């Protein structure tokens, strides 16, 4: 089998599994800052119980994120050695900064948060979860800096001898054109994940009749956060990010929107379509005319370049096209669903009846995997849509893999990680629901 394809499968699998956990822990960390803050300021037993319960849930999620995250730092070198040699001058610094400014902060203070409750004053315990949340957010920032540089490289010149990028401006490389749009879109997505996790587990507790008074508190925090952030992740941040892609990576934008053939005039927004390959085309298409042109350029008649207007060796091809189209559109559809559900929940919470709406709680209790799915789909759209490049315009994915690693070795590691991750995922789910079964401390 093609070693590059195997390396891509391995990377996709290991990062895909890892990336399930950090979004929930980043979101939950900030919500815990709220719960712990309320517990500390009010001294109220209900807040304390809610904070204690979600603190334990957080620990379980964080542990999986840490365990699977070490793999990522190693894999650029193990699987993508040619890539590492090529981009080291620029890509390494954000990874090192992530260690220095983010990982140390979150890991050190996590120990204090989880094990120090009875050893340090209440304010310091609250500061420790604040530092964990801050560290986790900084970690997201630095890794997104690194990934954004792959999408929209900046702050470099190409060395005339080696042909590799050499840093000319660290600030331009860090604040490259896609860093901020992607950071805000991703961080708000993380908060959506954390908020739906808190909402779902609270709904589960209420339906099971466990510590209902406590669960009603966390349900309120969860649903308010879900409503606020599921709106923000789409408008303005998702919208802004899409506009940035249209300007900086027009080939990717065409692949995301399914614009395969150039057409006269404005481009519509596709609501539904079935993508086919050979040649790439959309079937059963339902669209709102002119809307995409309007959203990108503010002009319903402005044209948007389609894939056929770019050289064929500079655009995604084959199965990459339907994957990009489908992951992007399903992410958007899920995002709309989150807005609808969370605002409905917010309405009933405002009226004080959310905890009685069993039909809505029944839906919410199973809702938490959906934002994770949306995160994964968004990440797939970003990465597959960038193909054939690993660094847009500079280095092809086909030239990036390790030369000294054989296909057999990669296959062995795929099997190893496949087995371990399947096992870990199952155990994690099992332990999460045991935690729920046990429930928060009842408050009299």
């Amino acid at each position: 089998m093609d070693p590059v394809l195997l390396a891509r499968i391995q990377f996709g699998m290991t990062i895909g599994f890892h990336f399930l956990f950090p979004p929930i822990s980043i979101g939950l960390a900030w919500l815990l800052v709220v719960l712990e803050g309320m517990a500390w300021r009010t001294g109220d037993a209900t807040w304390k119980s809610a904070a204690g319960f979600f603190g334990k849930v957080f620990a379980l999620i964080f542990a999986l994120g840490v365990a699977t995250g070490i793999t990522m730092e190693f894999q650029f070198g193990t699987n993508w050695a040619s890539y590492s040699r090529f981009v080291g001058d620029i890509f390494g610094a954000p990874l090192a900064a992530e260690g220095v400014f983010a990982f140390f902060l979150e890991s050190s203070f996590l120990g204090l948060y989880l094990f120090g409750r009875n050893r340090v004053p209440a304010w310091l315990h609250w500061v420790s979860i604040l530092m964990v949340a801050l560290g986790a957010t900084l970690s997201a920032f630095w890794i997104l800096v690194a990934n954004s540089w792959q999408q929209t490289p900046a702050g470099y010149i190409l060395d005339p001898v080696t042909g590799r990028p050499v840093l000319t401006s660290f600030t331009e490389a860090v604040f490259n054109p896609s860093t901020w749009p992607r950071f805000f879109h991703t961080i708000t997505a993380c908060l959506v994940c954390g908020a739906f996790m808190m909402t779902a587990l609270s709904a589960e507790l209420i339906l099971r009749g466990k510590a209902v008074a406590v669960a009603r508190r966390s349900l309120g925090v969860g649903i308010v956060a879900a409503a606020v952030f599921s709106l923000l992740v789409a408008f303005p941040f998702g919208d802004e990010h899409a506009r940035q892609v249209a300007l900086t990576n027009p080939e990717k934008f065409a692949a995301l929107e399914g614009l395969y053939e150039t057409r006269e005039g404005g481009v519509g927004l596709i609501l539904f379509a079935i993508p086919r390959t050979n040649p790439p085309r959309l079937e059963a298409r339902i669209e709102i005319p002119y809307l995409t042109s309007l959203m990108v350029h503010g002009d319903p008649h402005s044209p948007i370049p389609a894939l056929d207007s770019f050289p064929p060796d500079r655009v995604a091809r084959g199965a990459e096209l339907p994957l990009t189209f489908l992951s992007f559109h399903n992410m958007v559809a899920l995002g709309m669903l989150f807005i609808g559900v969370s605002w409905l929940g917010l309405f009933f919470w405002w009226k004080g009846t959310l905890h009685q709406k069993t039909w809505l709680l029944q839906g919410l209790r199973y809702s938490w995997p959906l934002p994770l799915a949306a995160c994964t789909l968004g990440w797939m759209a970003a990465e597959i849509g960038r193909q054939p490049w690993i660094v847009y315009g500079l280095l092809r994915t086909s030239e990036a893999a390790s030369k000294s690693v054989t296909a057999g070795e990669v296959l062995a590691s795929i099997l190893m990680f496949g087995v371990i991750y399947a096992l870990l995922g199952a155990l994690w789910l099992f332990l999460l629901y045991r935690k729920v079964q046990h429930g928060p401390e009842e408050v009299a």
Partner: protein
Amino acid sequence: MEATGLQVAWFVLFFVLIAGYAVLDGFDLGVGVLSLFNRSDAERRLYINAIAPVWDGNEVWLLTAGGALFAAFPPVYATTFSGMYLAMMLVLLGLISRAVAMEFRGKIESASWRRVWDRAFGLGSLLPTILFGVAVGNVLRGLPLDAQGEFVGTFLGLLNPLALLCGFLALAMFVTHGAAYLACRSEGDLRERSLRTAGRIWWAWVGLYAAATGFAWFDAPTLFAASVGRPVFWALLIVMAACLGGFPVAVRQSHANRALFLSGTAIAATIGLCAAAMFPDLVPALAMPSHSLTLVNSSSSPLALRTMLIIALVGMPMVLAYTVFIYSIFRGPVRLDEHSY
């Protein structure tokens, strides 16, 4: 070409990060290995809780060292990580197992459940410990590299006698160091037994150190040729010997904190000795000195190195400050409460 100050600074800083990792994660890996040999479920729980608040921060030293290597010397990162592919995958297997084992172990009230995760914790500590030593041994000896600096050896070739000796040396070091840490974090009988273990495994440390050095004299003579003329090499050697010599005295006098300090300093000095012996190589090429990856031919651009130096100088003092602070909160014998593992 002469090495620039920035390149030398990053050579030193990289080894400082590795030393920080070896000293800090060294004891918690050692505690993990020791737990394999303790038959008491309650004491194994104490072992895990002794490292629970700090192990995650300790492991970040490895991630940061990896990131720094990637940023400062990209070809070295690329060659070593891809060249030792299977070994790296096994290190990951170990580190993943021990991380989840600690979190999962106490979640279900069942002796056999705990036993499974204790095994995962112990073996997940043993495997990376030995492999780290094997990796260092191979780099000291030199890796088979082609003219592009690509690794051209095999996995089995990495399991050569010198590398294996270094693997067991790392095991002896970390277990001794871990036993000293356990003594600091326990009281009564467990403390006494931990000190006795530390004193015993110390012999293995000294013996394996002598054996590895003697074997390297024949297997990797270039290591010694350059270093005998370097004062820093001799200074580190004296520090290492003094700490190693003082360790059994501290153990006999039941000074656990001093023993921990001495074993930690000896480990750091050993990493320093490796650096002093290899300078200016980062990865010597086996039998082909012209293919070696040195701090001159594999460093990033001056601007990248300078930027990273600023990041390190701003960030690391803060890291050290809160690390010391958090360690000071969790000093003394482990006290279990409802938040413990």
